C-alpha cells in the first residue's frame, strides 16, 4: 500500500514491529500501571506532542522559536475562557484557540520573515511576543488577570467537556500525539516537507531551486502554532487553571523545545524519546536529591536542577544530533540506504 510505505518510509521491518509494539504498550498502559506512573506517562506524551509541534518550525523548516508558550497559552486561554463564560465545549473552543494562535503565529512570522530576521533575531522576536502577551494577560480582567482563570471541577463529566480522570486525559493526549506523528510524517514526505528541509538547509539554494521561502516559512509557523494551541487547550483542561505567569512563561517555551532537541531535531520519533528521557530523568533526580538530602541532612533545593542540567549537557555533548538517530541506527530500525528496498523477501 502506498500510504503505508509513505508512513513507514525508511523503517526496517524490525523498526516497524518495534513501533507497533510500542504503540500497543502505550495503548494498554493504563490497564496495568498505577496512577503515579500514569501521571508520568501523561507528561511524557504531552511533551512529545508539543515538542512535535515546535519541531515543525525548527526541526523541519529551521526557524527557531523560543516563544511557543505564546501559542500554548493563547490556545489554552481561548478555550478555557469560552468554557468558563459560556459553557462552550473545549473541542469547539479548540477551534477558536487554534485560530487565535495561528493569527499570533502569522503576525510573528510575517514580521520576522518579511524583514528577513534570521536565527537568533527571529528567536528574540518570538520571545518578545510571548512576554508582551504575558504582561497583557496580567491586566486582561475577562480572563482573570494575574489572579488566574479557574475551570469548574464539577459538572457533567465526559469527553465532550474534557472533564474526567487521568485515563481520559491520557487517551486524549495519546490520540493527539499519534495524529500529530502521522500528520508530520505525511507533511515531511510531501512537496511542502521537502521545501521546508531545503529552507532549513540553505534558504538561498532553496530559492534558486524554485522554493518560495517566505511562503514555506509562513506555512510552517501557522501549522506549528496551531498544533501548539491544541496542546495548550489540553493542558488548560488537564490542570484546570491558567495564570499568565505560567501560561506564557519563558520557562514553558524552553520546556517545549527540550524533548525534540534531546530526541533528535527534525526527527519524528525524537520528541517521544526526548520527552521520555527528560521526564524520567527529572523524576529520578527528584528522588535522588531527596535521598541525598535525607542522608546528609541538608536542604537540597536546586540540586535536582543541577543534576538535570548536567545530564542534558552530557546528552547534547555526546549525541549532538539527538538520541533517536543514533538509537535507530544502533537498533537497526532504519535502512542505511532508504532508496534501495531490502533484498526481496528479506527485511533486515
Amino acid at each position, binding site marked *: 500500500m502506498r500510504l503505508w510505505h509513505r508512513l513507514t518510509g525508511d523503517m526496517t521491518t524490525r523498526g516497524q514491529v518495534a513501533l507497533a509494539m510500542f504503540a500497543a504498550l502505550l495503548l494498554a498502559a493504563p490497564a496495568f500501571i498505577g496512577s503515579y506512573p500514569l501521571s508520568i506517562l501523561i507528561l511524557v506524551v504531552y511533551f512529545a506532542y508539543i515538542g512535535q509541534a515546535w519541531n515543525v518550525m525548527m526541526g523541519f523548516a529551521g526557524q527557531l522559536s523560543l516563544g511557543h508558550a505564546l501559542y500554548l497559552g493563547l490556545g489554552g486561554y481561548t478555550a478555557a475562557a469560552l468554557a468558563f463564560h459560556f459553557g462552550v465545549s473545549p473541542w469547539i473552543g479548540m477551534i477558536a484557540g487554534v485560530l487565535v494562535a495561528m493569527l499570533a503565529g502569522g503576525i510573528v512570522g510575517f514580521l520576522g520573515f518579511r524583514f528577513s530576521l534570521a536565527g537568533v533575531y527571529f528567536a528574540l522576536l518570538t520571545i518578545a511576543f510571548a512576554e508582551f502577551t504575558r504582561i497583557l494577560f496580567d491586566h486582561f480582567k475577562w480572563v482573570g488577570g494575574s489572579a488566574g482563570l479557574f475551570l469548574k471541577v464539577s459538572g457533567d463529566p465526559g469527553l465532550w467537556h474534557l472533564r474526567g480522570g487521568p485515563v481520559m486525559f491520557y487517551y486524549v493526549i495519546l490520540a493527539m500525539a499519534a495524529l500529530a506523528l502521522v500528520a508530520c510524517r505525511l507533511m515531511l*514526505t*510531501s*512537496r511542502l516537507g*521537502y*521545501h521546508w*528541509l*531545503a529552507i*532549513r*538547509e*540553505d534558504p*538561498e*539554494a*532553496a*530559492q*534558486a*531551486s*524554485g*522554493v*518560495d*521561502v517566505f511562503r514555506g516559512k509562513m506555512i510552517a509557523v501557522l501549522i506549528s502554532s496551531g498544533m501548539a494551541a491544541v496542546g495548550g487547550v489540553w493542558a488548560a483542561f488537564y490542570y484546570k487553571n491558567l495564570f499568565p505567569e505560567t501560561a506564557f512563561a519563558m520557562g514553558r517555551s524552553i520546556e517545549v523545545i527540550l524533548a525534540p532537541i534531546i530526541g533528535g531535531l527534525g526527527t519524528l520519533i525524537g520528541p517521544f524519546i526526548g520527552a521520555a528521557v527528560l521526564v524520567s530523568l527529572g523524576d529520578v533526580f527528584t528522588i535522588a536529591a531527596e535521598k541525598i538530602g535525607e542522608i546528609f541532612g541538608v536542604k537540597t533545593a536546586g540540586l535536582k536542577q543541577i543534576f538535570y542540567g548536567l545530564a542534558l549537557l552530557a546528552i547534547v555533548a555526546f549525541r549532538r544530533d539527538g538520541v533517536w538517530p543514533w538509537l535507530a541506527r544502533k537498533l537497526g530500525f532504519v535502512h*542505511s*540506504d*532508504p*532508496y*534501495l528496498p531490502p533484498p526481496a523477501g528479506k527485511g533486515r
Partner: protein
Amino acid sequence: MSTGGATLNVRGLGKSFRGLRAVHDVGFDVPAGAIHALIGPNGAGKTTTFNMIAGVFPPSAGTVQLDGRTITGLRPDRVCDAGIGRTFQIVKPFPGLSVLDNVLIGALKREPDVSRARDRALTVLRELGLHDKRAMTASNLTLPDRKRLEVARALATQPRLLLLDEVMAGLRPTETDQMVAFLRELNARTGLTILLIEHVMRAVMALSQHIVVLNYGEKIAEGSPEAIARDQRVLDVYLGQDAH
C-alpha cells in the same frame, strides 16, 4: 528536459556595492540553444552578473529578458519558475540531506508528485555519475562531486537556460573532459541554452560558440573563441595573466 532552450537578452546591466562599481553597462545576447561563456579575471563582475540575472539582487540599472519576457528584479524562485537554473560558484548543497533529496528538491519545481520527482532526480543523478552516491549525505561529498551535485540540482528544475558558475574549477582534467562531454551532449539532445562562467580555458574553448569578456565590471570584448584568443585587449588583461 524536452522543453528546449530560451533566449537571454541582457541590456545595460549595472550594479554598485556601496560605491564599488562591480558591473557597469553590460549587455549581451544568448540565442536559444547556444552555449556561451562569460570570462574575465577575478573580481571582473561575472558572478555579480549571474546574480542579477538569477534575481539574487536587483540590478542598479539595465534589463534582463528571457524569451522576450522581462524578468528584471524578480525573486530567485520566480526566475527559476521562468526557466533559469543556476549553480553557485561557492557550492551550496543542502548539506544535511542525501544527494538524492538535494536533487529531488530541484525536481519538485516542475513535478509536484514526490515519487515521480524522485524518479526524475534519479535519472539526472545517473546522467551526472552520482547515482551510486545518492544515499550519501551531501556534506560528505568531495568537491568535484559537489560541483556535479550543483549541476544536477539545477538541471532537475528543468530549466530552459542553465547558468553555470565555475563548475569545472577544482576538477581534474579527465573530470573536466567528462563534464564538457556531458554538457555538449545535453545541449545537443535537449537544445538547452547554456551560459557558463569558467576560468578553465580548455573547457571554454571546447564548449562555447561565443565568449563575452568582462574586466573591472565592463564588457571589453565579445566574439568567437578564435577571435577572443586573438583579441589584444583580452590578451592584455586576461589571458596575459597566465603567461606571467
